[in-house]
């Protein structure tokens, strides 16, 4: 998903760069305030870890292989702000050392993969953890679904940036990117969940430790990112979402769980003139998106079950589970 140089026009470069820089600034402030000094070197090492983990290829089918992106993994293990920094550093290194992702597109890439992906994923992860009471199963479901949603969200923003620059038509870029990343997201979710399950078994305190200092300042943190993310969304996606129901469904799809609240949202402001706009194509796209989200959530739940079921021996060893 690394956008190379030459695909974005100047306004997009400037806008995405500004939003990305603001987000990294927020992350730097929060990490500087809340992250214990003891764990600061961990940010650098976690960046190296994410980089190394991205190089590990998971065989998919017929000789092809996928790899981890790691935004949600970092967010779950270190908290969202540290994850933003980790992913930004990974992108900077990839850009300056390996020419992977453009220099002028660094802002856009950082926005997609270092801000939107971890923050959206983490928000969903936290929400599901809260809803399920915070047990291991909740953590795993949240991780899986958050990882999937983060991949799709990043691809939506990425398509918006490309379309806004005139590099690709919105009607082509969005479905192409989103469909592709709905599938890539499955792999991401699977890998992330398996890894988090391993860490939860080995060092459960790492997961909790990463959470505790964050959860206190978490709401303000999430609020700040939420504002930035919606700003990004407004700049890069809203211009294309002319038929509102479609746009809102994309938003809902981005936020994943929010599709529950979407019916009244569509209902009230545009009730009178929305209906003639809704072509069958729009409805079907939106429906497909919703079905995709529901299916992904179901898969996340199944995955969490499967991962939880297996380690009978380990569970007996660790003992104090129940």
């Amino acid at each position: 998903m690394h956008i190379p140089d030459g695909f974005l026009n100047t306004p997009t470069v400037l806008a995405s760069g500004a939003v990305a820089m603001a987000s990294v600034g927020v992350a730097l402030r929060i990490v500087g305030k809340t992250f214990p000094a003891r764990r600061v070197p961990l940010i650098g090492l976690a960046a190296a870890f994410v980089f190394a983990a991205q190089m590990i290829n998971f065989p998919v089918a017929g000789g092809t292989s996928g790899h981890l992106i790691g935004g949600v993994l970092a967010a779950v293990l270190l908290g969202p702000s540290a994850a933003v920094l980790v992913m930004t550093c990974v992108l900077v290194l990839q850009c300056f050392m390996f020419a992977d992702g453009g220099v002028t597109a660094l802002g856009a890439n950082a926005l997609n993969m270092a801000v939107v992906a971890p923050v959206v994923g983490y928000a969903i992860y936290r929400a599901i953890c809260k809803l399920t009471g915070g047990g291991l199963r909740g953590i795993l479901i949240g991780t899986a679904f958050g990882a999937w949603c983060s991949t799709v969200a990043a691809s939506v923003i990425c398509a918006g940036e490309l379309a806004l620059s005139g590099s690709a038509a919105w009607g082509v870029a969005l479905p192409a990117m989103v469909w592709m990343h709905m599938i890539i997201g499955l792999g991401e979710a699977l890998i992330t969940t398996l890894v988090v399950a391993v860490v939860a078994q080995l060092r459960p305190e790492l997961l909790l430790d990463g959470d505790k200092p964050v959860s206190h300042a978490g709401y303000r943190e999430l609020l700040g990112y939420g504002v930035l993310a919606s700003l990004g969304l407004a700049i890069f996606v809203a211009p294309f979402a002319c038929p509102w129901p479609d746009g809102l469904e994309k938003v809902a799809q981005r936020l994943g769980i929010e599709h529950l609240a979407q019916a009244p949202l569509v209902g009230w402001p545009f009730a009178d003139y929305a209906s003639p706009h809704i072509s069958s194509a729009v409805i079907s796209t939106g429906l497909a998106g919703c079905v995709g989200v529901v299916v992904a959530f179901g898969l996340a739940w199944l995955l969490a079950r499967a991962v939880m079921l297996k380690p009978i021996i380990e569970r007996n060893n660790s003992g104090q589970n129940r």
Partner: protein
Amino acid sequence: MGKTGSIFAGVLLSPYKHRASVVHSFPPMAKLIVAVLFVVAMVLLPRDAWGAFAAGAGALLAVALVSRVGLGHLLARLILVEPFVLCVAGLSLFQPNGFWIFLSMLTRSTLCLFCMVLLSATTRFSDILGALWRLRVPPLIVTTLALMYRYLFLIFEEAGRMHRARASRTFSQSRWFVWRRWATVVGHLFVRTSSRAERIYDAMCARGWRT
């Protein structure tokens, strides 16, 4: 990490090629700024500025020849990243006048890529970090980048060793099993990374490091 590891270790992890040339001894800060300006100029040019693209390509080739880094090395690195460019550029084909947009974007981003490949082949990453530091990039980011670069190779090797150890003890070929095995390696890698970070912090404190 098997064959993947050796490929990446060979090609990806050593972009810097040391030579005695003017380009190598040029101040890194100036090199970084020139490279970024070149990329920005390429990006700002209109889509049909073919003459300017040609001039840019000529300039890059000249610098590449002066730097005495083998063209083969540069091209190998370029080809490694080129598929991503093709993939994204392919999206532009599906619009009116798509082919020309496709061609111009491909040229432009290939030039930018070549510029960055050239920069990374002639400048050590630590020098780039020094330049970033002097350009007032926030210290936490520079520190993180420096730590990341320092431990990247170590963690990479560790992952390779862990995978080899794991592979020599497990024989199942079922895909679910393979994925779990990899995930276990990655999970363990994180746990080890985390305890290594704590040791590093202790070592830093022991040497008088202060936040």
